[in-house]
């Protein structure tokens, strides 16, 4: 199993958590019903205490092992400083405006791109959203400088495996000036900023 995009992961997560939610509600409801009954309830399944504790430990730790092995951006993120990207885009943000940001970026399928965003003043976010509003990826953009006054990097590597058109949205609140005070329009949103081309219909290189 491997999730090549956030959409696949979110769909899996949605189904898995919904099943769990119904399960836990049903278990407590069954428990509540039998709590009030005079006759002894028949156990559907008998789980020894240490099995239950073991299950919790396995779920807690196993969840991270599962995602590490199935979500490609986890290991890529941890080792990103040892990976040479196919292309790199470095720009700044300040006073609620993107500065020196390319007007448009085109990415070939399967390319690994580095985005390095530096903030001159506040905490912002950098997120890529599909045209249907779903989130492809994001990071926080913290302000700050080193001892020489050079702005701190906020860098992320991302590999694009599906064709698409992406908007840029600041995913962190940076005050009401990020919006038009009258209309409420998001002034930091850059529509159709990035295009991915060259993938097969179901993802992956042609």
């Amino acid at each position, binding site marked *: 199993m491997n999730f090549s995009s*956030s959409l696949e*992961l*979110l769909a899996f*997560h*949605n189904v898995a*958590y919904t099943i*769990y*939610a119904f399960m*836990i*509600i049903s278990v*407590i409801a069954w*428990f*509540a019903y*039998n*709590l*009030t*009954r*005079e006759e002894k309830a028949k156990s559907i399944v008998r789980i020894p*205490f240490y099995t*239950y*504790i073991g299950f*919790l430990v396995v*779920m*807690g730790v196993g*969840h*991270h092992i599962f*995602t*590490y092995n199935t979500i490609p951006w*986890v290991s890529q993120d*941890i080792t990103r400083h040892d990976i040479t990207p196919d292309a790199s885009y470095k720009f700044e943000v300040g006073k609620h405006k993107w500065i020196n940001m390319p007007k448009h970026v085109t990415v070939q399928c399967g390319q690994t791109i580095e985005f390095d965003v530096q903030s001159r*003043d*506040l*905490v912002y976010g950098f997120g890529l*959203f599909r045209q*249907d*509003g*779903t*989130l*492809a*990826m*994001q*990071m*926080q953009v*913290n*302000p*700050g400088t080193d001892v020489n006054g050079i702005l*701190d990097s*906020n860098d*992320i590597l991302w590999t694009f495996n599906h064709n698409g058109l992406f908007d840029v*949205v600041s*995913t*962190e*609140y940076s*005050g*009401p*000036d990020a919006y038009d*005070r*009258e209309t*409420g*329009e998001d002034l930091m949103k850059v529509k159709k900023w990035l295009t991915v081309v060259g993938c097969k219909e179901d993802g992956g290189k042609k």
Partner: protein
Amino acid sequence: MSIMNNLMNGTNFDHKSLNALQKVTLRAVVMSFLFFGLVAIEGMIMRLVQAHAPIPDQFSHPEHYFSIMTVHPIVGIFGSTYQLVFAAFMFLVPFLTKKPLYSIKLANAVWLLITIGTALAWLSAFFTGYAPLYTLYWPLPADTTQFSVFGGIVFIVGVALIMVGTLGFIYNIYATIFQRVGVHKDKTTKELLISGFGIDGMLNLWNKLRGKQPYTKEPALALPVVAIFRGTVDTFLDAIVILSAGILVLVYLLFDASGHPLNVGAVDALLYKNYFWWGLDLVADGLVLIYVAGSWYLLATLITGQKLFMENVARAALMLELLVSWMVWSHHLLADQGQPEMMKLISGEMVTAFELLTQGLALFITLVTLWKARPLKMTPELAYLLAGLIGFGLAVPAAIIQADMGMNRILHNTQWIIFAHVHIALIVGLYMTLYSAVYVLWPIVTNNTRMFSKKLTWTHFWLYLVGGVGMGAFAGMAGLDGMLRRHLYIHGEFNTYMILAAICGTMVLVAWFLFLFNIVMSVGIKGLIGIFLPAEDKTASYGIEPETIAENHKV
């Protein structure tokens, strides 16, 4: 009895019969539920804006919308939840230890300080549009190009008053626990400390493993008091962090007002985030979980009248929860690329995963304690307790899922986090537990006042439960579709989910109104006013045996 008569005089409530401890408890409870109404209305305004409902334009203006979002958690967490929890614990500690509360005056100061502080923060946001959100990410709260300096100062003073009130609560709790009177007359401070930190529970387990006699058969402090003792450690640390962050912001605002602004770049934004989240997370992953576990244990034992199942394990688990709560803050910084990867892995993922164990253990112990006492009558307090278990049963795994480097990349700052996790944990998990405590303690604190209507109680229960879970679910689904939590949407982008969430939110609001109506009809307006009049009986303790409560639940 006519409706009007009920409205004025209540059922059989007599405020003159209440002692000082009962009155100070009820004062904070009243303020807590009034703030709950305010927070529910604020929440509904935000839901209606996001659902593109035809409401006045001003609510959609960014400064107004985000000022509501700024005070919403301040009013909800501090004005309502803190007040209710503090009120319950300042009553329970004397009740369970059979000792007087250290100071009634201090208890009065606590609810007054929190009420005034919350009101100041709210007024600042309402009138000046001060809106850095509760996260106060540096340097936004000191950004005077976007916010009024005066508004910021009032807001920070308000939050500081809340924290001073919190420190007053902490002092009162520990001073009461360490008082060497009554059953603790012959106990040493060391014995009380060992019991308070649950070390006696651990030693009992250790001795059992070695086949030796237990370290102590009768621990100095009852288990719920141990939970209060330990949760209050986190409450203290959290108060210090928020207070110091507030002082930092205040210094910058005051210098700005004097015409000599300081350089905001002198404070490292990421380091500040780490410090602030360490403190703020002690609320979410520290005191809330510990207090809740303690409350479940207390409620389960009071409702069943039986000893808690696996009490030593429960004591030891509370200690583990305390240690875990100090080391999990990095899960809030998984999207911060400057955060060291090892901290993300260890603090953000691995230690955080322990909460599944500690909370799962608390759930298990509570359920088995109830099960062993079956058959039980399904009273409101039992139903609310079980609903509280559902809330955390849903919210804690949601937290573990998102506290993952893979998942966080696409869930961070989305509505999933704040609704599927936070709102379900608070509205369903925490508040259902607190409602259970309210119904358990109601006869004790009000001297057996009859509740006006049982039908209203059950209507409140179902409306609140379905509305709370529904709102969390629908808004959480919007988060999975990419809806951000701290963002203004004006084109109805997530309308379907937002309309459904607004319908469920309305159920929560209506449920609150029914609950309040039921309470007012039970105590009457005269009684309500009477709660705030000085108590004739200055007694600061309450000595009803807990076993009497259990009798009401036997079939």
